[in-house]
């Protein structure tokens, strides 16, 4: 499925529609270059689940947690491997305690840095650009 968006609001709208299909334990990979709208997309997913605080880039913190209520899903884990230089840096993050758990939805930016494929996605989104528009491709 391919979506074209022109601005942040449209990206968030696509994200909201996508979020409706998610269930606990889902792991979403978001691939694409800097400034392509990956964090904006996660912001749209978090807003769909009722998280109202600002969703900030996890590039520096690596893992952000957004607590949510209203269903069996209790948190969105927003992960960014941007600063990971070596795949050996991923296991110490102890992500396996939460990734794939039925109460957690996981969004991972720069998943290709996990060269050892320690984490498998349920959905893979690719963010590219065509004629000044963001192109979001969603692979189930």
């Amino acid at each position: 499925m391919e979506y074209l968006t022109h601005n942040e609001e449209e990206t968030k709208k696509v994200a909201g529609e996508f979020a409706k299909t998610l269930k606990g334990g889902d792991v979403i990979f978001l691939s694409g270059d800097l400034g392509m709208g990956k964090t904006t997309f996660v912001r749209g997913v978090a807003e769909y689940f009722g998280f109202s605080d600002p969703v900030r880039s996890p590039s520096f913190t690596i893992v952000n947690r957004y607590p949510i209520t209203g269903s069996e899903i209790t948190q969105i884990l927003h992960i960014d491997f941007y600063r990971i230089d070596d795949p050996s840096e991923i296991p110490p993050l102890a992500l396996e305690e939460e990734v794939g758990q039925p109460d957690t939805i996981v969004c991972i930016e720069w998943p290709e840095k996990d060269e050892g494929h320690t984490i498998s996605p349920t959905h893979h989104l690719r963010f590219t650009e065509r004629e000044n528009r963001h192109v979001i491709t969603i692979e189930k």
Partner: protein
Amino acid sequence: MRILAIETSCDETAVAIVSMMDGVFTIEKSILSSQAKIHALYGGVVPEVAAREHAAWIFPLMKDVGVSPEGEGIDAIAVTAGPGLVPALRIGVELGKTLAWAWNKPLVAVNHLEGHIYSVWLNTEKPPSFPALSLLVSGGHTEFILMKDHGDYTLLGMTRDDAVGEAFDKVAKMLGLPYPGGPQISREALEGDATAISFPRPMLDSQDLDLSFSGLKTAVRVYLSEHDDISVADVSASFLQAVVDTLVAKTMRAITQTKPVSVILSGGVSANRVLRETLQSSISQLDAEVTFHAPDLSLSGDNAVMIAVAGLMKASRGEYVDPLTLVADPNMRLA
């Protein structure tokens, strides 16, 4: 009072011993894992993120800082309890708890951001007065905090997306400059024309004190994709100017709104000379007398000395925590 401080909230493993007498702080020892001397002693260089394996560093650092295994001469222990990355924070927090319990000494839990703010209380004859407006800018944080007194914080605004240090690093990467991006962009900017490219000054129209740097990052990316023959120096200078203009304009707005007597610039990005000088000069042109404070360059990045100073202030107010129940808090808030 002499305090042992431990900081492991992000990449830097740091240990320091600082004493306070009659309100004067003396740095007795301060060690960072990134210091070349330690690298030489214990082998290898620490990759940026692998430095999170603080467990490997913390005991060599404790040994190097010269702490007696019995804790002699140490009156209290301060540890960064958050915000930060959980596995990283845990190393320092668990060590602090263990030492406090084994030595039967009081333990202070320090917020990392509070540490940055207190970095300006060091090496100065005239520390800030209250109310003080603090602009904290680093790789992971960009926020305005009003300090009405020691330990009394109000969050006024913060970035809605990327921290300013992150914007520096990502723009540097787009320009093919090495990590860390801040110093690289500053160096390139010296040779560039800050008026060459008109990048946006985000959020200047909004009356609140929130900031946003994701759009500016995207504007640089779009510029780079639309131009073949670019000057790295001009892009760097124009980007830097957009960042500085935005931060300074928002700080001046915050001054108008909160009427502080001191302004504190802290965090890793406070090392940026253009930001320091522009902010200082804007503040000096105000009618009101407002003092400007920024940390020594050696204390602008993450370190344990600032945790020690914030810890000594909390200890002097008797704000101790129970070593048996303290838990690292990745989302710890100041206010």
